[in-house]
């Protein structure tokens, strides 16, 4: 069974430019997460979806970040405009819906903003 797929794996952009990340979760996983991970830190939740609904976006910087999961399957995370401090790894994860289920992570997208 295919795991969580993310693209691109790496992205280098200049500050103030837009960037988008794509994630396809494991088939049958209704819950999808976007995390940000800085070097030496644990993942920090940006947004969680249950099907198409964003049920927790309290940590998403809404002035520049946006996300969508239109058909309840794959998802896109966008940053516009990017800032130097946005350089990090962006991880997507998915799980079955409900509590107590483990998350499965994709390989991440390493973003460098110059």
């Amino acid at each position, binding site marked *: 069974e295919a795991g969580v797929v993310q693209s691109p794996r790496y992205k280098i952009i200049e500050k103030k430019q837009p960037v988008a990340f794509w994630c396809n979760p494991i088939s049958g996983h209704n819950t999808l997460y976007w995390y940000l991970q800085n070097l030496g*830190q644990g*993942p920090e939740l940006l947004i969680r979806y249950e099907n198409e609904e964003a049920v927790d976006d309290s940590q998403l910087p809404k002035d520049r970040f946006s996300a969508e999961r239109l058909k309840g399957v794959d998802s896109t995370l966008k940053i516009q405009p990017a800032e130097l401090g946005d350089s990090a790894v962006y991880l997507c994860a998915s799980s079955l819906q409900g509590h*107590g289920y483990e998350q499965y*992570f*994709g390989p991440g997208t390493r973003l460098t903003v110059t």
Partner: protein
Amino acid sequence: EDQVTQSPEALRLQEGESSSLNCSYTVSGLRGLFWYRQDPGKGPEFLFTLYSAGEEKEKERLKATLTKKESFLHITAPKPEDSATYLCAVQAPPGNQFYFGTGTSLTVIP
């Protein structure tokens, strides 16, 4: 206030030297405690889920245990391929949120 604290931050072991990693948590109403392994340049890889105090899970050289306030990941006779960062996460109400620790970086020297 940190919900999850992992210690030590880094650990160097000789091959075959057993040790334990600690994950302490302060959340109430634990829905699950999860251990992950993360290799450089990769996403976290799921290892174990523990749900209640007293529970134990094993996989090869790894054994995870859970009490009401902390979890331990015991590594028995580690090998160099066990070198990685080990992350702990807890899921708790409200909203079944996940809280991750900062990880323990394990290096096993041949």
